Each structure stands twice: as C-alpha cells, then as structure tokens.
C-alpha cells in the first residue's frame, strides 16, 4: 500500500470538510494511505509571500520537514498549499544559503529539511501514482452520461514545475473518463477563479467567476469538478451574488473531484460530504446517489 504524509491545510478543517472526507474515503478504496501530518501549520496561501519571502518559505518548510521526519512523500489537496510546498522544497534543494538560513529557524522546533522528498498534489496521486486504469477496475457505479467540466484552476499547472503541459493538460479528463463520465471540452479550464481577490477586490473576482460559469454553461456542463477549496467556494458560494450582479441565472453544482470519484467507486454519498453544498446537486446526481454502498 502506498503511503503519503497528508497535509490537509486550513480550508479542509471546516469550509472544505467534504473534500477532506472524500479524499480519505476514495484513497482508502484505491489502496492508498494518507497519514495526516502531525501538528502542521498554515502554509500561508498567498499572503505570507506578500510580507516576507524567507519567512514564507520557512513556514512552508516546517510542514515539509515534518513529512521528512515521518519518512514519507508530501501530498496536499489544495492547489495553493501544493504550489507553495513544491517551490519551497525545490529552493531548499537548489540553494545552500537559503537552506542553511531556514534550517537554523527550523531548529527551534527540532526539525531539519533536506528537500529530498517528493511533493504531490492530491490529483496527481490519482492521475499518476494510481492511474486511470487502476481506478477503472474499481468503479462500481459509473457516472454514465454525466457531463463534467474539469476545472484545473491555476496553481496545479502553474507556474510550470516539471515540463508539464500548462496550456492544455489532459489528466483531469482522463480521471473523469475513468469514472465512466464525459469530460466536456472546457476552454476556460485553467483560467483563474479570482482566488483571494474575492475579499480584496470583489468586482474583479465576481467578473472572473462569471466568465467561468458562463463558459461551463455554454459548454454543456452538468457539474463542475474542482481540485482546490478556494476554487470550489468561489465558484459555488458566490453564484447567487454573480446572478444578482450580472442578471444571470447560474445554478451549476460544483463538487470536488474526489466526491464524484467516490460516487463512481460506490461510496455512500454521506461519507463523501455530499449534502453540504449551497447549490443543490440533486437535479444532476440523483440517479447516482445510492445508499447501499461501501
């Protein structure tokens, strides 16, 4: 069984609890173990980096060092957490001066980081570590004819990490096919949801959300699948406000890819946190919500 140090991040403690639950349930069925990082701290999202670069990297490094101590590779379900962890890990490995400086600070918590561990986004564990073929074998409740918009968002694919396709990635589509569903051709799949602009510049964020919802609707999406708590909240919880602002009538459910995957794997909807949405999923999901499930 593959085992990872799992860094849930602050959002998954409450706001995105359904992402946390569905991540644990789906990985369990797929034979992957997520061991929660012991006493992790907030990764800083984008805001530490507004203040001080070295401090921001130090706070991220603490979590990585805890994973290193546990002897496991690091996995984060949130795109911002993942991006921060990935780059701090890379800088630590490449820059001896920076590593010395940060390790001096980490000593205050009896930790050290070499940067030798691998950092994954949770979706990468499904797409590349387990793989669509293995997933397909375990699907008992294929999401037939469900049209899913694969919403990558920004920071899974950007900045470029390891020569990946940043303009037209395909791994999310493959996972959706493995669920037995149809990935729609979603032109805005890597366009930004506005991130924390929702709090700091609302007109800009609502406009960005509107563009995404419009493109998903025009492309015939029944549901949008996300792999980031901030994307999920922006696209789902602010639909009412977008509708008020622009006179639109969006009511597109937005679920974590792990929730849809969980349904396909025959996991009971309740265990996947389905039911805590603000935009009802019943109109599109009712036929897949089976109670007698694993």
């Amino acid at each position, binding site marked *: 069984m593959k085992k990872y140090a799992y860094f849930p991040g602050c959002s998954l403690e*409450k*706001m995105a609890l359904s992402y946390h639950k569905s991540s644990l349930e789906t990985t369990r069925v797929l034979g992957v173990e997520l061991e929660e990082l012991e*006493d992790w701290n907030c990764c800083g999202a984008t805001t530490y980096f*507004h203040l001080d670069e070295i401090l921001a990297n130090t706070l991220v490094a603490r979590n990585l060092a805890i994973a290193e101590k546990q002897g496991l590779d690091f996995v984060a379900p949130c795109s911002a957490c993942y991006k921060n962890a990935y*780059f701090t890990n890379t800088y630590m490995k490449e820059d001896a001066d920076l590593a010395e400086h940060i390790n001096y600070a980490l000593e205050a918590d009896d930790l050290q980081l070499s940067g030798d561990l691998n950092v994954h986004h949770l979706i990468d564990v499904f797409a590349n570590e387990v793989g669509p073929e293995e997933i397909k074998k375990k699907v008992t409740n294929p999401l037939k004819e469900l049209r899913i918009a694969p919403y990558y968002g920004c920071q899974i694919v*950007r900045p470029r990490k390891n020569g990946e396709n940043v303009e037209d990635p395909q791994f999310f589509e493959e996972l959706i096919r493995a669920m037995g569903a149809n990935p729609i051709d979603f032109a805005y799949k890597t366009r930004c949801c506005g991130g924390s602009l929702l*709090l700091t510049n609302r007109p800009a964020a609502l406009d960005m959300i509107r563009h995404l919802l419009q493109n998903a609707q025009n492309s015939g999406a029944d549901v949008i699948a996300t792999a980031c708590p901030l994307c999920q909240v922006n696209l789902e919880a*602010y639909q*009412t*406000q977008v509708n008020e602002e622009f006179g639109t009538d969006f009511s597109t459910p937005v679920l974590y890819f792990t929730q849809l995957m969980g349904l396909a794997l025959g996991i009971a909807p309740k265990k996947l946190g389905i039911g805590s949405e603000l935009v009802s999923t019943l109109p599109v999901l009712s036929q897949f919500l089976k109670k007698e499930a694993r």
Partner: protein
Amino acid sequence: MADKPTFSQEISNLMYAAHGSPLNECIQCGTCSGSCPAVEFMDQTPRRLIGMINADLKEDVIDTNTYWVCASCYQCTVRCPSRIDIAGAMYAVKRYSMWNKTYADDLVGPVFSETFMKTIARSGRSYEPILAPTYIFGFGAKEFFQEVQGATKMMLKGRIPVLPPRIKRLKNFQNMIKRIIPMGDEE
C-alpha cells in the same frame, strides 16, 4: 561607497529565494497583459508595470493598483517569452510597498495580508472569522449584506469553524518565526 541600488534592482532583490528574475530582459511584447484575466481592473497593465519598473519610476509603480489586483494565477509567468516571473515580480512590489507602507490607503489587500500573518503567528493556523473584519467594513451596504448572507448559509451547512484552531507546539513555532523576523512578544 557602493552605489545605492536602483528601484528595479531593489525589486529583483526582493525575489531572492526564487533566484531573481530577468526583469530587464522584457521585450514589451504584451503577452502578459493579453493573458491576464484581471487586466481590465488594473490601472496599468502588467506590460506597462514592468516597463515602469525598468524605468525606475518608483512612485508611479507604487501608486498603481496593478500588483494588488494580481490574483497570482501565473498565466503571464508561464507564457513570458523572456522567462520573467511576472507574477513573482508582483509579489516583490507588494513586499516593497508593505515594508515601506507606501501603498494607496483604500486598498484592502495589504491590511488583509497583515492580519492574516498576525493570525498565523498567534495560532499557527488560519481562521476565517478573524479575517473578515479586515475587508467586510470596506464593502458597500449591498456587498456587506451579501457577504453576511453567504456566511450564514455556509454556517448552516456546517462550513464555518466555531473556535479558532491552534497548533500544539506553538511556542517552538513562534521561536522559529523570531529566528527569521525579530518581533516583540504578544500577550
């Protein structure tokens, strides 16, 4: 005596961990501005901002809202033919303006970042209800009402935390921060 660094050098220096970025290699092609999903909300486009930094127009750069409107989506960064980390440069200008307290008064971004950081230093984790006052009072009546309505719906679905979370080894964590940035003890 060494020459005082220019503004564009200071901005590059603020991207130390990321190993700088060749701002002066900008060819002014505008791919960044054309790729930016928030450009219409900026008073100067990213292309112009890079040009202004390279021309050392410090005050004019700091006065724009451009770097605070950047959502850090890195679309510009991955497309730049001169391999400039443009989103990274936006962070550097943010840091410059935060340290020098030179940003425009009506911006929510800097205050939000500062409160966020203080919350982390105090508890090790983020907690939405403490952060809300940094932006919500800047809203108009309609937005304020919408936000409260939204938060209430989230609360009813059990998606807002009641108590602030806190890490266990908080003292060590705070000592770690002090090894990077010396700061006074908080009560």
